[in-house]
């Protein structure tokens, strides 16, 4: 799903590597900024520069309740669920404005992606409750068409090889969100017609996100927790990351993010790594960020005896990141919600040392690079 960002990052790297101009960059470039998605409280985007503590805001309306975003060419897309009015939000970072597109009633939108024109659309949105895919053509008068029957509970969508790949979390999304079995990827022609290929993801329940790089998909699952004995909570299945060869229609590898973990999803960094922020303890008070290379091997400066990144705040404690991403310079950005959901963006160097702290509005739910 983050193909445009990955492509842009790869192109920037390639351009830098091939340039023969003495004034051209000779190495990885810093991001143009970091984006924090504020899903509640002060809904919208907090745009943080690459240096300093100055921020800008792109306000969303107060019905927004999204939990994730996609970024391409200074445009950010996110969605609001059925409670938030079934809407697609499109933010223009240059103009500092946001518009909304009404999606079908009671459709409960989830993941969205830029289509690159596939299906004569700009954006595709997975609609959980109506089990459909919405194709949105942005413009002065946006149009919305839908393809029905794209899975039991489509949670996200990616684009690869002229097809849509629906991530079906296989849950009863219209009621309890209980898992009905393993998740799966479903290939869909741009118009929804014709045969559909399905790739089962064995042992992966309630998958929530997909990142497509080339012909490879990386699927995230937050895992399964048992709340039936609350307040005692048990992590039944840990958060997982799955590498899928879409061309070969096979699962390459599945890894547990951590032996006990729950929640979160992967985001592709500008360094090509996958960053996964998740909870490690059943009180959800201990959180960690993991970095994986594209072979799903933990990488980065990690804590002794664990695979999580050795991120340390000024007081030596570990941040409780709700989302994280890395840039091409090895820096890691993480957003934390404190008391009253006051959000803070922390920047760390490659060793996990704190570089910068920036106030980032309220109710952070995701972090991405501009």
């Amino acid at each position, binding site marked *: 799903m983050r193909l445009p960002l990955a492509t842009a990052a790869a192109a920037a790297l390639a351009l830098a590597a091939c340039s023969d101009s003495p004034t051209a960059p000779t190495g990885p470039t810093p991001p143009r900024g970091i984006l924090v998605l504020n899903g509640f409280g002060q809904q919208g985007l907090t745009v943080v520069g690459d240096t300093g503590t100055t921020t800008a805001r792109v306000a969303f309306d107060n019905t927004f309740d999204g939990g994730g975003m996609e970024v391409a060419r200074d445009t950010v897309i996110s969605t609001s669920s*059925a409670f938030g009015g079934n809407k697609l939000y499109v933010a223009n970072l240059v103009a500092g404005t946001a518009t909304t597109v009404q999606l079908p009633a009671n459709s409960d939108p989830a993941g969205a992606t830029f289509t690159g024109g596939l299906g004569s659309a700009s954006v595709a949105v997975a609609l959980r409750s109506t089990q459909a895919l919405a194709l949105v053509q942005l413009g002065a008068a946006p149009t919305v068409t839908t393809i029905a029957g794209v899975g039991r509970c489509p949670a996200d969508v990616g684009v690869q090889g002229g097809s849509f790949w629906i991530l079906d979390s296989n849950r009863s999304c219209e*009621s309890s969100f209980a898992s009905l079995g393993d998740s799966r990827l479903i290939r869909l022609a741009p118009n929804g017609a014709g045969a559909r290929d399905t790739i089962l993801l064995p042992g992966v329940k309630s998958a929530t996100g997909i990142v497509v790089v080339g012909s490879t998909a990386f699927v995230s699952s937050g895992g399964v927790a048992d709340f039936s004995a609350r*307040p005692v909570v048990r992590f039944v299945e840990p958060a997982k990351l799955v590498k899928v060869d879409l061309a070969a229609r096979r699962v390459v590898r599945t890894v547990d993010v951590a032996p006990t973990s729950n929640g979160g999803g992967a985001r592709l960094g500008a360094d090509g790594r996958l960053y996964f922020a998740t909870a490690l303890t059943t009180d959800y008070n201990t959180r960690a960020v993991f970095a994986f290379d594209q072979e799903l091997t933990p990488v980065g400066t990690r804590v002794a005896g664990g695979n999580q990144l050795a991120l340390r705040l000024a007081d030596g404690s570990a941040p409780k990141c709700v989302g994280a991403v890395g840039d091409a310079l090895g820096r890691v950005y993480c957003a934390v919600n404190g008391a009253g959901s006051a959000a803070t963006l922390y920047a760390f160097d490659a060793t996990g040392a704190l570089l910068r702290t920036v106030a980032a509005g309220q*109710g952070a739910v995701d972090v991405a690079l501009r």
Partner: protein
Amino acid sequence: MSARRFHATLAGASLVAALGATLAARVAGAQPTAIADAARVLRGTVRDAVTGTPLTAARVDARDGRALTDADGRFAVRAAPGDTLVVHRVGYRAARLVVPAAAGQGTLTLALVPTGAASRVARLAPVAVTGTASPSDATARESRLSAVVPTAEARRLGAVSLADAVGLLPFVAARGAQGSTVVSMRGARPEQVAVTLDGVPLTDPATGRADLADVPLAALGAVGAVPGADALGAGPGALGGTLALTSGARPALAATLGAFGLAQVEGAATTPLAGGRLRAGGMWRSLRNDFRFVNRDGATGRDSVETRTNDDERRASVFASAVLPRAQLLVLASDAERGMAGPMNVRVYDADRGRTRRATVRAAVQPGAWSLSAALRAFGTEYRDPNRPTNAFDASSLSGDVEAARAFGAVAVRAGAGGDRARATEVRAQARGRAFAAVQWSAGGARWRASAGVRGDAVGGGAGARLSPSLSGERALLGVVAADDARPALVAYARVAQAFRAPTLSDLYFSSPQRIVARPLQPERARLDAELGLRARAGRATAAGALFARRTDDAIVWFPGNFGWSPTNVGEERVHGAEGRAELAALPTPLGALSVRGWAGVTVARLRIVRDDGLGLLVIPTPYVPQAAGGGSVELRRGPAFLAGTLQALARRGFANAPADRTLELPGVALVGARAGVRLGRAAHGALLVLAVDNVGDVEWQSVRRYPMPGRSWSLGLTLDR
């Protein structure tokens, strides 16, 4: 009123109401022959010394016989000047009075002090409060702002439920969604407002709230608002104020029909029982509530006119109150089923239903100078969605308390212990115990009063132990401080207190799906709750006003958010403001007797959150606290007929966990009501017929964001009473 007054004294106390002595007697001479209509028949009224409300079932022993006070606290015994009267009432200190020589020239008023407490809230008294036509300020509480609306007056102003009656109270902002009504005072959240019935907490330990809709109006004699923390009077939890309900004493039968399918019948009957009185009754109510509204947050992105469906309710309540010479029993039980219509922009939950059952039993006995009481509260709720059977949810809780109280001169002591147990679907049963001890000292004279006390609470489950001290005083700048004195007076008062509230089991375990596990929540502590005020009375007019401030550390706030509401400790909450009320009772005019009452208040409530790493302060208006509020009524009575208008106004109030932003506020609203009625038959045995129209302007408004409220509605009620 050029009354001659006599203050009977015992042990040198000139005025003993609320001051620790045992009895005060006053003879007001408006009716020169009121007492001695026979040579030795002495007539009078027994009142609560703190609240001024009449006490039913008080036993008055005289040399030649005894009498029991009626529903209005009145009695008649044969006695002569120099005789000694002894007055007993469970929950109050026994009182002795030597009948003054001048008793034959007026109406004798006896004021009993509640046992074991100089509490501002009558803890045991089933009372019928005098109407506002009384020239004295019967609603004035010691060293604080307060107000009482008798249910008889509330009915005249169109109230058919407790929620309606609360809407007539000053200083109270009612909030409702999905058929329940909760209240706020001085910017407090509903969990911070204690609701008591004759001193018994009605708050569910599971939720920290009491649903007013479950208490039938027929069970009550008066509804009182007492803003400000009152750990001594109402216990922990009353950080923002107390809604003090008092049982009724009169028999009544009322039937109401109204808009949106409202049908209600309620009644209460009284009978002598073992030297005391038994009062029992019940209520049944049905409301279809399928009103029209404008959906401005619809899934289509366009405004649409829709009909609110699945917003109906059916309720049944029963109650019984027995007041015997040395014992008292209170029983209240309710069963309510209602549609749980979701926000107006989400229709997929339009079939789910909720059912709530509550029961409260309290018994009190008075062996000697002690007052002992025990109470049990049970609460159960269930949620069902026929379209999502796996979402079924059940919860229940049980609370028990015992308490002992007595007075030692000017010092009153109380101590008690209790426990709560709760369970719910997907939550293991939780239990915790609690205990408290309190001591209060009061002193004063005709022109001043002072009180100091401290309450210590220990709560299990990690909530710890806290002391809540309080200090108050008042001084008459003109006249005397006594609230039931009819002479002109201007009284200045000040009060400062601390209080705390332990997280409820709901705070800890039943929060939104977003906060699916228990996280540490500290008790919130009002380290300062202060008010400075004035109250005045002159003839038919009374007025009172106060400045107030509250500072709460670790405030427990349920932030409204798009993921649901989840509680958290917020570093500090600062609340300050001013509020006041004024009342003019039964002013004779050419058109009839005119009564006017009004109130207004402004409140600034801010949550102050220190950002991590010193990144500054995040200041958030406390959600749903109106920046200003007010209301009032105008009533014109001529003979048996009356006309009235009511006003309830709320200024803008934020609905989000976010800094002040007009786009995150509900708009202000002013709701005007009109009533017309007539009393048929005699005043003592008659019928009251009232036609009420609410929201005359058909104003579109929301109490809680996205939960539309009905537009213009009507009701027609007939009450038979005596």
